[in-house]
């Protein structure tokens, strides 16, 4: 390819974008929306999943004791099991106080309340995978009314998040198809606007791919612009969210470091360019008649 050819092709694409500024803007907005939704899904699900993964690895469970139970006996029964590392007794008043602290209620109100909470034992297992077995074992001990563990909730949430992920993927696919259609329609309009030129190109012996190329470049340019736009919005939004989370939920860490975020940004741009290319391939195949 000569320098002259390269200049010719790029100029053709750029002229086309400029002449159809409004349609071009619409195409870019639309692809950006798709990339943004997909990006948000990725960020959200991966973060929540990772956090839940950490919860699922916890080794703690809580054993509620009956009113009449002998805490020491239950403790002894638990510690007799190899899988139990240690136990700690928490009386019902302490439980209530912790609840008040967690909820930010006024502690003075405590004494007016007939404490509904039981005494309990906090049990730690040696390994996280032992938790369900220990739960099973603990719930059979006389004087134990209920057993709670973080894993339980975490595992349920993990199942839920898998559903969310599937929904996200389906939604992304639908939006991707919409983005392709928008690019294809935009390119189709520019093909129509330049049909005289195309006709002359065909007459003087331009190859099919040479005629298609400026339109493909145009599509890729739309995709690139959309990718950059949505990457900026995604990273900006993520940084803001990160700050908020750090302030309000100090126990929850956002999962991504700068390298992963850079990768996500590049991925967004590349995905945008693929949409642009795909849409213009479709349009040029359909609307530039092969000679």
């Amino acid at each position, binding site marked *: 390819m*000569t*320098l002259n*050819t390269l200049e010719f092709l790029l100029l053709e694409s750029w002229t086309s974008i400029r002449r159809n500024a409004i349609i071009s803007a619409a195409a870019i907005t639309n692809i950006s929306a798709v990339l943004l939704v997909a990006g948000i899904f990725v960020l959200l699900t991966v973060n929540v999943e990772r956090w839940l993964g950490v919860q699922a690895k916890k080794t703690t469970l809580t054993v509620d004791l009956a009113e009449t139970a002998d805490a020491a006996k239950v403790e002894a029964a638990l510690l007799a099991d190899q899988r139990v590392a240690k136990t700690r007794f928490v009386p019902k008043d302490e439980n209530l106080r912790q609840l008040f602290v967690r909820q930010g209620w006024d502690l003075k109100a405590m004494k007016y309340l007939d404490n509904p909470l039981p005494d309990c034992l906090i049990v730690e297992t040696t390994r996280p995978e032992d938790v369900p077995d220990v739960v099973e074992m603990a719930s059979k001990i006389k004087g134990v009314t209920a057993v709670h563990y973080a894993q339980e909730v975490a595992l349920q949430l993990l199942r839920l998040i898998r559903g969310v992920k599937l929904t996200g993927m389906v939604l992304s696919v639908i939006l991707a198809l919409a983005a392709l259609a928008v690019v294809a329609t935009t390119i189709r309009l520019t093909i129509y606007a330049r049909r005289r030129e195309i006709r002359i190109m065909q*007459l*003087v*012996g*331009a190859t*099919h791919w*040479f005629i298609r190329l400026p339109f493909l470049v145009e599509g890729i340019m739309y995709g690139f612009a959309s990718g950059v736009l949505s990457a900026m919005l995604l990273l900006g939004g993520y940084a803001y969210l990160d700050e908020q989370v750090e302030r309000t939920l100090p126990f929850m860490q956002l999962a991504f470091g700068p390298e992963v975020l850079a990768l996500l940004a590049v991925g967004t741009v590349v995905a945008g360019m693929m949409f642009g290319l795909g849409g213009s391939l479709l349009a040029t195949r359909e609307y530039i008649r092969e*000679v």
Partner: protein
Amino acid sequence: MVYLDNVTVVYPNGTRAVAEVTLHIERGEFAFVVGPSGSGKSTLLELIYREIRPTSGRVIVASQDVTALPSSRVPFLRRMVGVVFQDFRLLPERKVWENVGFALDVVGASRREKFRKVPVALELVGLANKSDAYPHELSAGEQQRVSIARALVNSPQVLLADEPTGNLDPEISWEIVQILADIADRGTTVIVATHDREIVDRLRRRVISISNGRIARDDRSGGGYDDA
């Protein structure tokens, strides 16, 4: 250079545009194809630049069987066959020399090649001094000369002209035909479809008369529009 062997074209609606035409036009020859509108003149030219394929028969251009040519090879045929139309088909937002250079741009020519060939082509049609004008600043005759320059700039072996004088005054028409005849004298095969009897009668070159898709008369010696 151009050889049609028993060619028939039937359009999907059943119209027989060209019927059993056999025709041979030599290198450097100038030939008129005449006949009333709808007689099949344009169809004949379209066969040569592979805009259409014949229903039966063979079309040979520059020793290539055009009928067997795959679509991907058609652009390379078109680089050997220049085409000129009644409506000029210039790009209004490009200058004269850009319009001519366009034919080089799209076949991947270098800038140097463009700067060498475009002035030569414009010189050939007598428009060297108008290269920076836009098409709308030119007369119809000048516009047609630009389109001839564009068709020539790739040095084609065959030049086809479909009613090139259809939009022009008699005087200008004669100028255009003389340019086309000059081109033939330089060794390019030129085929002009027309129903402009004045230029045909005046130039006295080969006349192929078409009627209802058939060759009614082929006067190789140089005839008039409706010599018997």
